[in-house]
């Protein structure tokens, strides 16, 4: 398993070669509360780093989702349609959101776990 990296906007990603898996962090899901719905794009769409690709709706609020990298969507977690609560119960596992094929390089501003912890605790 590749190391997990993070963004300031509370997404996580793992990178294996060109294949990148994206989700939202445990801190993000705890802040959102019970997730009831996700609005997600279709596979094939190209995203640039920082682009809004969807919405996660919890009981409390709707929040935009941002792509941490530039790339093409290769898969969307279909399980989330029926079971959005996977975002809460297993944010780093079954609650993954997108798989992307990386275009170009990884952005330079991704955070490691220690750096992200500081962002989350701020």
């Amino acid at each position, binding site marked *: 398993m590749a190391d997990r990296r993070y963004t300031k906007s509370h997404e996580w990603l793992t990178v294996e070669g060109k294949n990148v898996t994206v989700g939202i962090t445990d801190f993000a899901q705890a802040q959102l509360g019970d997730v*009831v719905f996700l609005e997600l794009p279709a596979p094939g769409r190209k995203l640039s780093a920082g682009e809004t690709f969807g919405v996660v709706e919890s009981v409390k609020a709707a929040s935009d989702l941002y792509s941490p990298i530039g790339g093409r969507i290769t898969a969307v977690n279909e399980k989330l349609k029926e079971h959005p609560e996977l975002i809460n119960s297993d944010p780093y596992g079954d609650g993954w959101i997108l798989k992307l094929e990386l275009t170009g390089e990884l952005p330079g501003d991704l955070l490691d776990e220690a750096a992200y912890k500081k962002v989350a605790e701020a």
Partner: protein
Amino acid sequence: MTGSAARRTPLYGRHVALGGRLVDFGGWELPQQYTSIREEHLAVRKVAALFDISHMGRFRVTGHDTFDFLQRLVTNDLARIAKGHAQYNLFCNEEGGVIDDLVVYWGEDAFFVVVNASNRERDLGWMREHAPSTVEIEDRTFELSLVAFQGPRAEELLPAIGLSDIPYFGFRDGEVAGIKTMISRTGYTGEDGFEVFVDSASVGDLWDSVLEAGRPAGVLPAGLGARDATRLEAALRLYGSDMDETVNPYEAGLGWTVKLDKGDFVGRDALAKVREDGPRRTLIGLRTEPGSIARHGAAVIARGRRAGVVTSGTHSFFLGYPIALAMVEVPSFRVGDKVAVEVRGREAPAEVVKLPFYRGSARSASAASKS
């Protein structure tokens, strides 16, 4: 609220120990949820759950003119109840706008008035302003705690005896888990259940005992998230969201609490005129598609124009779809009409549905008012 720090109820330590996610509500630091709004919400609907509602304002009113004083301040008719019974009520201003919604309890040697946390000081001022010198109003919010035990199995699972003798909106002194309390068959979830008044010194023990006794059956502590979702399913109005001083009771769908024939009371003339002319707005229920939660303030659009505004909205885990209350212009809509609501900057389809969205095990408030 003002800039001062949020207040804490005597159960604050329990909320922290239970992992409650604390938020500011009406100037009080209270749990939004302990584990999950979904689980807590379903516990209320299927078993029973325990809420700390000690943030609500509680006043003890005494003096032999108390009945006449309260009768002149509230819209409902206190002569329709007797000692040992409570009544849902409103304070209105002279223009007929709703100052607060509240419950009046007619006790053996005092009346109790329970009001919304965010209005406690306003209500206390309003009451004192109107009270004759023979009436004494005591703020008991801090010495007396209040918890709600709500759910279809509440009577079976609350560790107390003789609960079946307490009618809907009735109350009496009694022991819960061996602790002296006042037990009232009232609530804010649409389910059967009890609100228990207890000395703040004993509320921690009571809380622990009720949870421990109910745990094998699935009783959970529940936070503000489950409280809001269940009250909304039951279409119980939330002051500050669904109504305020710019809204009159007829617009809020609470005309049944206004008894124009009971004699004079504050706001009566204005309300009689609204009744005669008919309200210009009305509160309706909306159902939207999964994922389209219409939030407070969202526009309601019909026939290409803005027809009103959403006052409360949430996802109902119990019903499986989002629901909302909306204040719309009159002539209003019929059940089954299709409208649109603003969700995340776009128009989403919505259907006008009957209120309440869900009728739980509590007997209906309107039935009690007619008794």
